[in-house]
C-alpha cells in the first residue's frame, strides 16, 4: 500500500504531547548564564550616554557590553552598503526596541534586574513610521550617508495610461496591507556554548545551515568549529530566518564569560525585536470592458522596510509585483515598486512574504470590477481566468512561468461547497429586513509562487543556494535514516519524509528515522520557508531513496541470482516477480552491503548511502479558491464568519491530514489579518500593540470551523508533483474575508475597507452610508 497520500499519524507527536520535546529554553547546561538586552525606549535618538555602574555592582551580574565592545566585529550580515544594522546600536537608535546594551547574569531574574538598572540617556530625533511621512521633503533621514529614506526603486517601463484609457471603464484602488507580527508561540531563543576553539549555538531557527554559514564567517572561524543546532522549533512563519543580534552576540558572550549563555525573549520583547511582515501600500489602476474583461492592470507598490533593510524585506515587493496578475489572463500588466525605511521594527518574511499582498490586491480589484460592471464576482473571475490548457503560462515577468492549475475547476468546487446560489438568495431576502444581520459572501481565487526553488531564487535573499539536500543511509539491519537539509518548525517533516522514503525504498515507515537541524550531522542545507518543504526537500528525499534502491536491487539480484528488472520491493523485502516465495529481506541486503565477499563486483562495500542536492527547474504555483460567508450585526458592526470554504490545489498530497492542518493554520492567520491584527505605532514611533493584550492574536472562539475541498493538478517540475502548502491559507484567506465584508456592506455604498476590519470601522461605514 502506498503511504504517499495516506493519513499517517505523526512521528513527532509522542514527544511533543508528553513534554519531552526539546525547545531551546529547555536546555540548561551547567553554569549557564542568562543574557538580557537593554533596548531603546526611543524610536529615533542619539545615544548620549550609557551608565552601567549600578548594574555591574549587583550580585550575580557577570558583565555588561555595548557597541564599544564590538568594534572588531562587522555589522549584522546581509545589509546594504551604508545601511547595515549594527549588532548593538552605535550612537543612533532607529526603532523602539533596538538593542543598545546586553547584560549577562547568573539567572534570568538577576539579568532583568541588572538591565533595568542600566541608565541610557537619549537625545531625541524626529521619527517617521509611515511611508508617506518618510518620503516627505521635510522628513528626518534615517541614514544620513544615504540622503533619502527611499532605498530601492524599480520603475515601470510603461505606465499603461494609453491602454487604461482605451478600455470601456477604469477604476482605481488604494490598498493598505497592514503591518503584522508573526507571533510564533515560542519567541526567539538561543543558547551558545563556546568551549576552547569550538562554539555550539542552539537557536530556534528555520535555517540552521544558513545561520552557521554566516555566523562562522562573522566570527572569523572555520565552519567546522561552529555548530548550529535547531532543536524543536516552536513555530516560525518566516520570522526565524533573519539575522537577529542575539544570534551573533550569544557566541561572543559565551566566549567572553567562559560560560554557556542563554537568551530567551519575553513576548513583549519579541513583539518589537522579531521582524514584522507585510506593511505595503498599493496604488492600483485597472482597465476593463463592460463585459467584465480586464484589459490592463497597473500596480504601484510601496514597501515599508522598517529601520534597517533586511535582504528578505527588500525582496517582498519583488514577489508581490511578480504575482500582481494572480490567476487572470490580463493582456497588459505594469508594476513598479519602491522600498522605504522608517523608525519601526525591520520588516521581513511573514507567512507568504509578498504573495498574500499580491493575491489580496488582485482579488479586491476583481471584486471592484464586478461591482462597477454589475456582474457577479464569480462570473468576472470565470471570464478572466487563465484556462486549464494554457500551461506553462508566461506572465508579465519573465521569471514567472505558471506551472499548472485549473482555476475554473477550483472555483466550481468552491461554489458548490459554499452553496453559492443559496447564500446569494438568502442575502437578497435579508437585505430589506432591518432586524436580520447583513450577509456577505466573498471569493478569493488565489495563486502564489512557492517551492523555492530554481537556481538563484534564494540566493537573492542571501542564502547559499536554492537546492535542498537529502541523505539516505541504510543501517546494517535494513532500517533507514533520512537526513534533510530542511529543518522544520511544525510542518511534520519526520512523518512526510518517512512516508516518501518508505514508498520509494519499500522499507516500513516505522523503520525510517528522519533527522535534521544539526550542522554536525547534515553537511549542508537551506531551510524550511517559501512552501518548499515537500516540493523541494521532499523531492530530494525521493530522489536519494531512488538511487539507493537502484543499488540495493543489484545486491538483491546478486543474492537471489535473479535479474534486477524482475525484482519488486515491498514490505521490507525484494521479491522475484512471478516466483512466489523467492525473496530476500531488506535486512539481508543491507547486511550484505557491508560484506565485499557477498557483493556483485561493480559495487563497493557501504554503497547504500546517498546524498544529493535537489534542484528544480522552476517554481511551483499552489492555487485555490476560497469562499467566506459573513454575518454583520447592523447595530454593533460585529462580524461573524459563518462559513469558510477552502479548496486548495497543492499538487500531489503526501499526507492529507498534515496538508489540511497547514491550510487551516494559514487561513487562521489570514482571517486574523483581515479582522484582528495590526502592528501599530503612535506619531512618536512608540509601538502601541507590543503585547498580546493589545495585538489581537485570535483564539479558538474567534475563528470558525473550516470546510476543506481539494483539486489536484500536479507540478511538472519536481519528481513528487507537489506544489507546497505552507503559505496557501495566509495567501488566500484575507481577500475572501474582506470581499465578504465589502459585499455585505454594498448597500451602504462601500467599495473597499482596509484591514483589519474592526467592528468600529464597519459601524462607522454603516452610519455614514445610511
Amino acid at each position: 500500500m502506498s503511504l504517499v497520500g495516506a493519513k499517517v499519524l505523526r512521528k513527532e507527536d509522542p514527544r511533543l504531547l508528553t513534554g519531552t520535546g526539546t525547545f531551546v529554553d529547555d536546555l540548561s547546561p551547567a553554569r549557564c548564564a542568562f543574557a538580557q538586552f537593554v533596548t531603546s525606549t526611543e524610536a529615533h535618538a542619539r545615544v548620549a550616554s550609557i551608565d552601567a555602574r549600578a548594574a555591574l555592582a549587583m550580585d550575580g551580574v557577570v558583565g555588561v557590553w555595548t557597541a564599544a565592545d564590538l568594534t572588531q566585529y562587522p555589522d549584522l550580515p546581509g545589509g546594504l552598503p551604508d545601511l547595515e544594522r549594527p549588532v548593538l546600536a552605535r550612537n543612533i537608535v532607529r526603532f523602539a526596541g533596538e538593542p543598545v546594551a546586553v547584560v549577562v547574569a547568573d539567572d534570568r531574574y538577576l539579568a532583568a534586574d541588572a538591565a533595568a538598572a542600566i541608565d541610557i540617556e537619549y537625545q531625541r530625533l524626529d521619527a517617521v513610521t509611515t511611508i508617506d511621512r518618510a518620503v516627505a521633503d521635510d522628513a528626518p533621514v534615517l541614514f544620513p550617508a544615504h540622503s533619502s529614506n527611499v532605498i530601492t526603486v524599480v520603475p515601470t517601463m510603461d505606465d499603461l495610461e494609453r491602454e487604461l484609457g482605451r478600455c470601456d471603464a477604469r477604476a482605481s484602488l488604494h490598498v493598505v496591507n497592514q503591518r503584522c507580527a508573526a507571533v510564533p508561540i515560542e519567541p526567539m531563543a538561543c543558547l551558545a556554548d563556546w568551549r576552547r576553539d569550538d562554539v555550539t549555538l542552539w537557536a530556534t531557527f528555520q535555517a540552521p545551515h544558513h545561520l552557521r554559514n554566516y555566523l562562522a564567517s562573522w566570527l572569523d572561524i572555520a565552519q567546522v568549529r561552529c555548530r548550529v543546532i535547531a532543536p524543536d522549533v516552536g513555530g516560525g512563519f518566516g520570522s526565524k530566518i533573519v539575522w537577529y543580534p542575539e544570534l551573533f552576540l550569544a557566541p561572543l558572550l559565551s566566549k567572553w564569560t567562559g560560560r554557556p549563555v542563554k537568551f530567551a525573549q519575553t513576548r513583549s520583547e519579541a513583539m518589537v525585536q522579531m521582524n514584522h511582515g507585510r506593511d505595503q501600500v498599493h496604488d492600483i489602476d485597472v482597465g476593463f470592458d463592460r463585459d467584465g474583461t480586464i484589459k490592463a492592470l497597473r500596480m504601484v507598490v510601496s514597501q515599508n522596510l522598517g529601520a534597517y533593510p533586511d535582504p528578505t524585506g527588500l525582496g517582498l515587493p519583488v514577489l508581490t509585483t511578480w504575482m500582481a496578475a494572480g490567476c487572470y489572463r490580463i493582456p497588459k500588466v505594469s508594476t513598479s515598486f519602491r522600498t522605504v525605511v522608517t523608525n519601526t521594527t525591520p520588516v521581513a518574511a511573514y507567512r507568504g512574504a509578498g504573495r498574500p499582498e499580491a493575491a489580496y490586491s488582485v482579488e479586491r480589484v476583481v471584486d471592484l470590477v464586478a461591482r462597477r460592471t454589475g456582474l457577479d464576482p464569480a462570473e468576472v473571475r470565470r471570464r478572466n481566468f487563465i484556462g486549464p490548457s494554457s500551461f506553462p503560462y508566461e506572465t508579465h515577468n519573465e521569471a514567472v512561468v505558471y506551472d499548472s492549475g485549473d482555476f475554473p475547476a477550483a472555483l466550481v468546487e468552491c461554489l458548490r461547497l459554499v452553496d453559492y446560489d443559496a447564500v446569494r438568495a438568502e442575502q437578497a431576502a435579508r437585505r430589506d429586513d432591518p432586524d436580520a444581520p447583513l450577509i456577505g459572501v466573498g471569493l478569493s481565487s488565489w495563486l502564489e509562487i512557492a517551492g523555492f526553488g530554481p537556481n538563484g531564487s534564494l540566493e537573492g535573499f542571501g542564502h547559499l543556494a536554492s537546492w535542498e539536500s537529502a541523505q539516505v543511509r541504510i543501517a546494517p539491519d535494513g532500517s533507514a535514516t533520512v537526513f534533510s537539509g530542511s529543518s522544520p518548525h511544525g510542518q511534520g517533516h519526520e512523518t512526510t519524509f518517512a512516508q516518501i522514503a518508505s514508498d520509494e525504498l519499500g522499507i516500513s515507515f516505522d523503520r525510517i528515522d528522519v533527522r535534521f537541524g544539526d550542522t554536525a550531522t547534515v553537511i549542508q542545507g537551506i531551510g524550511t520557508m517559501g512552501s518548499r518543504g515537500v516540493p523541494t526537500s521532499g523531492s530530494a528525499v525521493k530522489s536519494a531513496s531512488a538511487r539507493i534502491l537502484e543499488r540495493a536491487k543489484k545486491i538483491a539480484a546478486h543474492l537471489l541470482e535473479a535479474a534486477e528488472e524482475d525484482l519488486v520491493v515491498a514490505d521490507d523485502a525484494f521479491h522475484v516477480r512471478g516466483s512466489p516465495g523467492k525473496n530476500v529481506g531488506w535486512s539481508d541486503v543491507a547486511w550484505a552491503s557491508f560484506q565485499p565477499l557477498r557483493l556483485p563486483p561493480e559495487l563497493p562495500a557501504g554503497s547504500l548511502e546517498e546524498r544529493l542536492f535537489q534542484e528544480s527547474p522552476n517554481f511551483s504555483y499552489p492555487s485555490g479558491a476560497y469562499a467566506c460567508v459573513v454575518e454583520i450585526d447592523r447595530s454593533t458592526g460585529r462580524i461573524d464568519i459563518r462559513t469558510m470554504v477552502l479548496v486548495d490545489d497543492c499538487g500531489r498530497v503526501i499526507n492529507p491530514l498534515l496538508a489540511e492542518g497547514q491550510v487551516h493554520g494559514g487561513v487562521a492567520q489570514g482571517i486574523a489579518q483581515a479582522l484582528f491584527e495590526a502592528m501599530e505605532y503612535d506619531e512618536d514611533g512608540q509601538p502601541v500593540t507590543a503585547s498580546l493584550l493589545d495585538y489581537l492574536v485570535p483564539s479558538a472562539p474567534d475563528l470558525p470551523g473550516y470546510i476543506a475541498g481539494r483539486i489536484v493538478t500536479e507540478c511538472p517540475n519536481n519528481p513528487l508533483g507537489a506544489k507546497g502548502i505552507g503559505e496557501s491559507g495566509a495567501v488566500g484567506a484575507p481577500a475572501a474575508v474582506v470581499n465578504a465584508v465589502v459585499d455585505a456592506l454594498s448597500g451602504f455604498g462601500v467599495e473597499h475597507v482596509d484591514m483589519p476590519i474592526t467592528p468600529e470601522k464597519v459601524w462607522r461605514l454603516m452610519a455614514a452610508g445610511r
Partner: protein
Amino acid sequence: MARSVDVSITVNGRRATRAIDVRTLLVHFLREHERLTGTHVGCDTSNCGACTVLLDGEAVKSCTLLAIQVDGQDVTTVEGLTGPYDGFGAVQEGFRQCHGLQCGYCTPGMVMAATGLLATNADPTEAEIRMALKGNMCRCTGYQMIVDSVRWAAEHPLPGD
C-alpha cells in the same frame, strides 16, 4: 537571590520542598527547579496559555502565580498525565489522532486546559470547547483540529469506546 523562602509543592504526585527566591513564578519553579520543561512560556501578559497546568485539578496559568502562592498544593503538569492509550491519556491520544498539534509549543498548555475542561464537562459541545480554550493560543492549527481532538477525547475516554 532577593529573599529566600521555603516552599513545598506536590508536583505530579511527588512532594518538592525547596528554598527559592520569593518572586519565583510557578512556571519557573517547574521548569528551572523541578526541570519539568514540558510547561512552556509564550507570553508575559497571561494571554497565551502555553504555561497551563492543573492546580488541585483546575487549569491555571503557571506564569501568573508565584510558586509561594501554591505552597502546600497539588500541581499536575503534562509530564504527569497518564492513561490507557499506551500510557497516553485520552486527550493526548485525541491530539495525536486528530492532528491537534504542529510545532507542539502550545500543546502542553492546550492539553492541560482540555484535561481541565473534560474533568468538569465530560461531553462538551464545540462551542463549549472553544470557550474553554479561549485563554490558549495556537498559531499553527487554526484551532479546528484542536477542537476535533478534544471531542475525540470526550468520545473515547477509554480505548475501544
